[in-house]
């Protein structure tokens, strides 16, 4: 074990960085829980349109969902590559994950602008307010994830990413997969159950 890893251990034998990050993810569950609750509570209570069935584009969002699922696959492949010391493939999978994240964000920007053009804004009705806050917060999380992934990719390019510090990639992966599972819930609750 390296000194760096040893300094991050806990009395339970767990990496303190991972433990702290799982606690953070737990708090994020409550954040998204409150936003999803708000969406569900106000669902069907808009007095003016556009309503969800008028505006949501399921084929388009299905592609975004597929994109995010594939990005999760790329992320675990990046972690596996770092853990076995294969820096070449780690760089490939990390940048692929980031690009899929950027693709997802581009889709969200397109979706938001088309909704605004069709008359749905934050102020239009309860659906607009809860939809934009929920999906916008998720999009902000994806943006942070993309920046984090690109930072790791640059570190990999500089040769600073090794099997010894694979836990940094693992923690980034935890964040990215969490963003993915939140989208799994949003896709079902917001888009498919109208």
């Amino acid at each position: 074990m390296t000194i760096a890893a040893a300094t991050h251990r806990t009395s339970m034998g767990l990496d303190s960085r991972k433990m702290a990050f799982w606690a953070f993810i737990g708090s994020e569950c409550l954040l998204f829980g409150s936003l999803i609750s708000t969406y569900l509570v106000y669902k069907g209570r808009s007095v003016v349109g556009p309503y969800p069935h008028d505006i949501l584009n399921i084929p388009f969002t299905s592609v975004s969902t597929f994109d995010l699922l594939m990005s999760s696959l790329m992320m675990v492949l990046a972690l596996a590559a770092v853990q076995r010391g294969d820096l070449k493939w780690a760089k490939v999978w990390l940048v692929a994950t980031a690009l899929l994240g950027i693709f997802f964000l581009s889709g969200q920007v397109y979706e938001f602008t088309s909704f605004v053009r069709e008359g749905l804004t934050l102020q239009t009705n309860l659906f607009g307010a809860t939809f934009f806050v929920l999906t916008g917060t998720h999009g902000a999380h994806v943006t942070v994830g993309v920046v984090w992934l690109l930072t790791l990719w640059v570190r990999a390019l500089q040769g600073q990413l090794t099997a010894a510090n694979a836990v940094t990639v693992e923690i980034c992966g935890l964040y990215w997969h969490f963003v993915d599972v939140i989208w799994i819930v949003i896709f079902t609750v917001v888009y498919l159950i109208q």
Partner: protein
Amino acid sequence: MQQPSTDEHPVVQHAHPTAGVYLRVATILVILTVIEVGVFYVPAFHSILVPALLLLSAVKFTLVVMFYMHLKMDSRFFTFLFGGPLLLGLGMTMGLMFLFGAFALRR
């Protein structure tokens, strides 16, 4: 540089799944997503739409958390750190929906 072997609290490392497992999980996730979208579009399934979609979503959620986030092989304490707030969030959602009449029977 190596630490002394008499480490009082060594970091416990758990083996992660292989790339083959990751690919199989990804295949299952894609198939479940296709089924979700299929269920949404096929009128015959509309009577069971909500339970079917929630079940499929829960399976996808579990697969990602267990295999991609490694909770299946990692420390149970991480499961507690994640599962506790998750259950609290679920309870909060159900409670708020109940309070605001989302479960009220419709005529």
